[in-house]
């Protein structure tokens, strides 16, 4: 049962990351790509972290995974923001 939930979470996480990557490769300009990357990837990462937490089951691991996700979230927010700003500066 636990394995099944973990597998489902893992697969859906992979799907979102895959979608994000396809978006980054196919979308026309920087802003659309950023949109695809950040949104889809953060969700994907969260799902994968949840899958791992379910598989491990310990609270310590769960909290650590949560911390990792939050840090990744912070980093991707700021870097996406900076890239967008830079791109706007370039286009103007």
């Amino acid at each position: 049962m636990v394995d099944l939930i973990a597998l489902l979470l893992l697969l859906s996480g992979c799907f979102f990351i895959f979608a994000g990557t396809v978006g980054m490769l196919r979308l026309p300009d920087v802003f659309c790509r950023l949109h695809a990357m950040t949104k889809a990837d953060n969700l994907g990462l969260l799902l994968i972290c949840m899958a791992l937490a379910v598989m491990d089951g310990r609270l310590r691991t769960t909290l650590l995974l949560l911390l990792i996700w939050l840090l990744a979230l912070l980093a991707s927010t700021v870097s996406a923001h900076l890239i967008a700003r830079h791109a706007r500066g370039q286009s103007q």
Partner: protein
Amino acid sequence: MNVGLLIDLLLGLILVGLAVQVVLGRQLFRSIVFYVAFGLAMALVWARLGAVDLALADAALGAGLTGALMLAAFRRLIKLDPAQAVTSGSAHTALALLIAVLAAGMVATIGLTAMALESQPGAAGVAVFEALPATGLGNPVTGVLLAWRGFDTLVEMVVLLTAFLGARVVADEGWAPRSTVASFDLPLLRTLVAAIVPLASLIALYLLWIGSDQPGGAFQAGSVLAAAGVLLLLTGQLLPAPTSSAWLRLGLVLGVAGIGLLVLLPMLSGRPPLAWLGRGALLLAESMMMVSIGCTLTLMFAGAPGLKDGTR
């Protein structure tokens, strides 16, 4: 076909593909970015091989800080002369290709032969596992680095200091790079720094503390500190300064001094140099090394002899 082999093959293919991109990429900037990706993939390989210490070190030092240093150097070239910085004529000759292929073949043969020859494990490694319980350490790599082959590590710290001195010799005095990121002056950035820097320090201390028993240690901790330093420099919280204070220089030599004492102190009581002083002494020396590594790498990124507070 088993899953393990599949993962190995996949990781190997990723590594080789990234290496090809690094070498053959048209734009230098792309090559650097691919090199960073290569370093991260390498960290995965280390983890796969069970060498977690190396995974941490390679992700932080090999990929992160080397990449940051390369990008900083690249930016300096661009500032000096945008046209010349990226001109990279190359002489693709059949001869070079032949030599490379032959070398690869040779290395493969050597490696496979050595692996086939070897059946009994290394005597030194077995001795390490035998001697480990007596020291109370849990991480054999830390034991090798700081106790049994501690002298190598001392020299390694001296090499780091020497590289810093060398970088000072060739640096352009009076040319302090301004961070473009800092010029944005975003509230978001300040939030990032406020969150990341204390957390990074905490992670560094944690890595240092568990290094005796689990993967981690002074090098990994020091590079996490250096990463925090790089972040502070990028966001303009720290600024390169034209002169260095004696305190900062003391911080730079602290690591060599720490492990040097580890070597010398036992001699005072008539024991051989580097004789075992206990976990506490090891931890002290390691924390001194961590400070040195963090300071040195941050200063190397800044390309300046000193730092000053950028918030005032």
